[in-house]
């Protein structure tokens, strides 16, 4: 067997998925494109429903409550560079090259997309230095999914060449995270393609799918540049989408329309010093949620968040009313019951009520909280003198509990139709 045949027999050396392709007989030098290509777009250019110039009016301050945990500071659109990369592999690692970096920015009277191409892999270092120089002019960088993709890939390449690994332009706004916080519940997924179509009103035609970009670049290296234009266009569209998406995100963050978006913004406002606006958003979200019967997943996130806000603000009477309403509506599982039990145990001192709510919760519980509820019930019984101080907290060793008062809370809530007496319910669950 010849060496070629023996090598051909090795499974690990067979091409994965694709046909082996010999380079076509042409001179790569003849098809070398420019290392940097620049395209400009007038402000009137519409990408989806928005003209690009509108982005300059974006109120980036509105982002603060939505993105404060991400370290995204406020900066004007002109100070931001919109960055998107294409790589030779989607898996990462030392063999994964960044071969195309698109940078979008606002000039005085137009939007500029500058695309840097790695024409030959041995020239990577110069290529990376050009990119670092270009990024140094900006205060912040915006990407889509860049926290997990573009940034670590670039950092790996910088590290490979023993350059400073940090991106010159910081901080970094990952619009994917922001979009997910605002629309995550409404969209089937949060891929850029979906966001473009559903939020930005932009539909791509004849787009080269991102997954084919590595293969297109490989072909280019072997002298076949037919696909390269498609890669450049794909990347350019990503950059334009980033710019208009930044605006859409700011608009939505200022006045969120979705339950999820309101909750996300309210969380930031509550922590960031505008609790009253947070409360207004939470109430609006909770109202919407009630109309929808519990939100997309039916687990009442807004009602819970509102309850938590009231509790933290020390507005106990309002909180109690809110939880009672939730319990009456059967909203939020055992959350309102547990909160009411805590309220009575620790604040009103009404231990009978506290025990009553705990037992109802135990009956509704599907087993997840059984141990905690049993523990609470036992503690309450001890406090009420129904159990000696040292008695086991677990109900298996307990004396039978008194039946709930006739016509008590349980019956008012219409819960007595559920079978089993309280004690059995708890004992069974533990």
């Amino acid at each position: 067997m010849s060496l070629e045949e023996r090598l051909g027999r090795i499974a690990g050396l067979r091409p994965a998925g694709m046909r082996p392709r010999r380079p076509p007989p042409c001179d790569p030098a003849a098809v070398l494109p420019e290392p940097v290509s620049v395209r400009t777009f007038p402000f009137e250019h519409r990408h989806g429903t928005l003209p690009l110039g509108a982005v300059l009016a974006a109120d980036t301050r509105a982002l603060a409550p939505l993105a404060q945990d991400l370290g995204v500071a406020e900066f004007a659109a002109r100070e931001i560079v919109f960055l998107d990369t294409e790589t030779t592999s989607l898996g990462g690692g030392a063999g994964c090259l960044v071969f195309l970096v698109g940078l979008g920015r606002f000039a005085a009277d137009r939007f500029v997309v500058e695309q840097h191409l790695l024409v030959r892999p041995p020239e990577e270092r110069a290529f990376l230095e050009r990119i670092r120089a270009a990024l140094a002019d900006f205060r912040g960088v915006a990407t889509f999914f860049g926290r997990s993709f573009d940034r670590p890939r670039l950092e790996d390449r910088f590290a490979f060449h023993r350059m400073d690994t940090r991106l010159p332009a910081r901080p970094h706004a990952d619009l994917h995270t922001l979009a997910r916080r605002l629309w995550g519940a409404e969209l089937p997924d949060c891929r850029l393609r979906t966001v473009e179509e559903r939020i930005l009103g932009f539909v791509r035609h004849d787009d080269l799918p991102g997954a084919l970009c590595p293969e297109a670049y490989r072909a280019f290296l072997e002298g076949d540049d037919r696909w390269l234009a498609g890669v450049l266009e794909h990347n350019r569209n990503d950059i334009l989408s980033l710019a208009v998406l930044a605006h859409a995100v700011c608009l939505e963050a200022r006045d969120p329309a979705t339950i999820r978006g309101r909750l996300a913004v309210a969380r930031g406002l509550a922590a960031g010093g505008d609790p009253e606006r947070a409360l207004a958003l939470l109430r609006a979200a909770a109202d919407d949620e009630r109309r929808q019967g519990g939100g997309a997943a039916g687990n009442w996130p807004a009602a819970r968040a509102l309850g938590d806000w009231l509790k933290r603000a020390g507005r106990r009477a309002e909180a109690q009313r809110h939880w009672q309403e939730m319990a009456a509506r059967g909203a939020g599982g055992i959350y309102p019951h547990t909160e009411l039990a805590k309220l009575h145990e620790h604040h009103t001192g009404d231990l009978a009520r506290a025990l009553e709510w705990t037992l109802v919760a135990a009956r509704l519980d599907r087993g997840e909280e059984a141990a905690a509820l049993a523990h609470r019930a036992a503690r309450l019984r001890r406090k009420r003198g129904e159990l000696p101080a040292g008695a086991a907290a677990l109900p298996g060793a307990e004396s039978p509990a008194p039946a709930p008062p006739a016509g008590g809370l349980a019956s008012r809530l219409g819960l007595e139709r559920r079978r089993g007496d309280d004690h059995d319910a708890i004992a069974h669950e533990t």
Partner: protein
Amino acid sequence: MERLLQQLRTDPAWRDRIVHWEVLAPEHGRYGDFPAAVHPALQAALRARGIERLYDHQTETFEAAVRGAGFIAATPTASGKTLCYNLPVLSDILRADPPTAALYLFPTKALSQDQVAELTDLIGRLPASVVAYTYDGDTPPAVRRRIRDRGDIVVTNPYMLHTGILPNHPKWGDFFRKLRYVVIDEVHVYRGIFGGHMANVLRRLGRIARHYGQEPAYLLASATLRNPGELAERLTGRPLPVVRHGGSPRAEKHFLVLNPPLVNAPAGVRGSALEEARRLAGLLMGVKSIFFARSRNRVEVLVKYLKDLYHRRGKDPDRVRGYRGGYLPRLRRMIEADLRAGRVDAVVSTTALELGVDIGSLDAAVLVGYPGSLASAWQQAGRAGRRCATSAAFLILSNQTLDQYLGDHPDYLFRTPREQAILDADNLVVRANHLKCAAFELPFGAEEAFGGGVETRAILDHLATESALLSRSGDTYHWAADAYPAEDVSLNSADIDNFVILEERSGPRGLETRVLAEVDRPGAMTSIYPGAIYGHQGEQFQIARLDYAGRRAYARKIDADYYTDAELSTDIRITRIDREAARAGRYVAHHGGVITRTQAAVYKKIKFYTSENVGAGAIDLPAEEMDTTAWWAVIPTAAAAAAGLYEAGGGGGLQAMANLLRGVAPLYLGCDPADLRPVAEVSARDYQAPTVFLYDALPGGVGLGEALFLGEPEVLEAALERVERCPCRTGCPGCIGPVRAGGRRDKEVARRLLAHMVGRGERAPAASCEETRAHEP
């Protein structure tokens, strides 16, 4: 222990079983002061731990390491090997001139964790903080970054280095820039295909270190071997000073070789080694002991035997534990902790515990069957007697040919220089696959070499054109494919997929499943076919069904009084002849490439204790194909006829001879018997003549065929001697393997075939015999 040894000496029933009793005299240590170059803070920390002086070999290794030469320390078990490398590493980290980091490689995760526990204890006594961590599949992602950026000592295993660290070296830039030491412990395990992979992983490591401006020194530690220097050079690609003598003290130690008595002399049947181990366990009760069995199956059978024994004697059966590969990591950690804490009296293990996992001091080690290599035997025996008290090791010989050969020649164990470890760093399959990984990690220059053998350039060109993985640009080859090659290259075999065994049982919420264990794909054929009994911690599970595509086996607990044993059949095809030689016309020997196709068709049910065959079943699993290397010999039909091969019908004598060769060859090759498989074809397709094959049981082969080709006369002589000395009449597992029905003449035919091959045939066949010589050199 003394009383126990006395009983063995005097009790006639035991005395008859002892074929050899070796007393290893105590040894006194040879000590010296700390070399002045050891950082003072480290000296103080060691003194605080009660270490006032160093053994001579520790001083020697320290000096070789800080000189930058590196070393391989091949010293006995419990000789303070760990300090040989920890001393220079910690000293230089403390000195920080230049900044120093070290990479530690252990073959298993368990050993890595052990090492970090020990390091942490020592580091805790140092004034400056030294960061030592394990980095493996269990390391939480949140901690990984900290380890990469701040680690002074990173402790990992070859698999993690191969798939996790090397392909992501840019993330490890800070670490590689100060990587001055690479520590590899348990070097003797890097034999065969695993060794070939390891050598190539180290080639990749070397390239990356050079990329970051480092040329680290290699600090190696190994069990005692005949050729540590050669192994070190093949592994690391450079010559390393060998440090052999142990300056460490040792208490008196007894090593007994036991052969179970013949229960049926004409049939050559001896008592089973497992049964013998059970008898010995009765004697050893209350003595902390470890039992080594040769396979997972035998571990489970012995665990069951011992648990039954403990139960009958009114002792807690929980004080007997099994320990082997396939147990999930958490269970293994628990067993290790119980061993150290003394909550276990007897542990039954495969080779998994032969390595340096810290399990505390043991008084006795029982080797149930010869483990296949001298290094393993001494490593296992060394498990007993780490502290300064008399200890004992027992080797119970099994019915296997190799064991019985040792029964004839127990001196082999004590007088032979330790065997060589074979590894082939230039196995084409292995090297080409790692070249692929290396090209992913750093571009290749056209003139750059990567080991020896076939030109690096030829493989690179293949990767660029045929495989479409690399792109050539001027004088460099760049990775240019959407793939992560290290994931497709397994360091142990060609396969990386494992089967998961799920236990099904009915619970309060219906059918519940839990993960019981794991089995690799080739192992599936022999252990988890539907109907198989799978032993786990002494309990039996029956495989109810197998989802081959989904890599899952479903098992149910069962109370069976039998275990199962699969029978394999192998078909072999020659793909390449590297060399051939007509041995004086008596036969023609070859070595070269073959493709084997192995299929399991039936299994037998074998009753516990009596070992009787109580049933059988069919196995319906896909065949496993393997591209490997082999040695084979073609015997002229006339000679075979003269030896009586055709008279008996069926040609069982040829298989008998193949079994004999396979039985004794490992002694000469230094390999495990499981690494070598025999096939006999009475009329081989390519020769129309009787042919015996011995092939490498690992994909790609490790060169056993070639080694056998060179060492043939010795192996043939040993096989002939074994069959002549075996007391059985018509064959037994101790010589020709299990006797098949109607195979009453197989033993004699095998003997005559061998006699013919070595030139002592009664009648030299007239045909194709140009010359007759008394003895083939």
